[in-house]
């Protein structure tokens, strides 16, 4: 995993496997307070208490055809490496919330990567899922709610001009709030 967006795709895939219909990708960063917080909140089937205690163990997985479960442990490792922390909260049949905090200016913090492209990748691949992407900085907040763009989502997956226009829309709004890469 080279970039933070790699973890986001990975964790969102977990949410989708858990049957989530609504997924919130909440990014909060503050240059003043030196943090970058990534939260993925879903309404999937949740994780029981027994499992949650083992979830950051790289040799634990719920998948039957695998012996390792690296996704969550890699995110925890990267967050802690960048002077941050990792938290997971889950309730059976309600959903799961994963939160990774990084020190924004830490030399070992992974770069964010192409967040606009990643959001588009996720919403076009799972057009039946309601995504809310929220990105907050010291300069403001940008929110993309797929319910608001329902009328254009289908076009985005089949038409590159629409795809690049949506990308431009996200990027220009992120530029306005001065997001850190």
């Amino acid at each position: 995993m080279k970039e933070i967006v790699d973890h986001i795709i990975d964790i969102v895939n977990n949410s989708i496997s858990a049957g989530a219909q609504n997924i919130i990708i909440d990014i909060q960063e503050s240059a003043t307070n030196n943090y970058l917080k990534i939260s993925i909140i879903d309404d999937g089937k949740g994780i029981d208490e027994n499992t949650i205690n083992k979830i950051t163990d790289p040799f634990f997985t719920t998948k039957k055809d695998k012996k390792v479960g690296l996704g969550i442990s890699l995110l925890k490792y990267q967050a802690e490496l960048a002077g941050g922390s990792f938290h997971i909260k889950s309730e059976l049949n309600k959903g799961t919330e994963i939160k990774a905090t990084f020190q924004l200016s830490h030399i070992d913090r992974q770069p964010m990567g192409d967040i606009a492209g990643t959001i588009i990748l996720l919403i076009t691949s799972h057009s039946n899922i309601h995504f809310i992407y929220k990105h907050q900085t010291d300069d403001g907040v940008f929110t993309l709610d797929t319910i608001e763009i329902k009328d254009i989502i289908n076009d985005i997956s089949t038409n590159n001009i629409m795809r690049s226009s949506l990308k431009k829309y996200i990027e220009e709004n992120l530029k306005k709030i001065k997001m850190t890469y």
Partner: protein
Amino acid sequence: MAKITSLDDLRKIKKNQEDQINLREKAEHPESLVQVKVGMATSGIAAGAKEIFTFFVDELEKRNIPAVVTQTGDMGYSYAEPTVEVKLPGQEPIVFGWVTKERADEIIEKYIRNGELIEGIIPQNYKTIDDK
């Protein structure tokens, strides 16, 4: 291109697009298009699946091949990542393993354009997260 900062700007572009081509029809019949699914579980992402995804999106557009490119979860073939499933209209899907940009190019030119099979095909007994 002008600045696109509001959803209204986006909708204007959509309107222009609809006037030019029959977008809606395409979007409502994805089975008539080439469908490319890039496996993006932890192992796929770590092996560079995101670059392969972008390569397919950009190159299929450049080469004027109507297609839908999406991501999927674990196909169960971590040893062969990045893995890509290609479904030509009216045919069974085929999964290619060890996909680099060079091989992605070969998949587009040989399989997608001409239906010619290439090396690195994985037998189809996996389940994607969509089926689980």
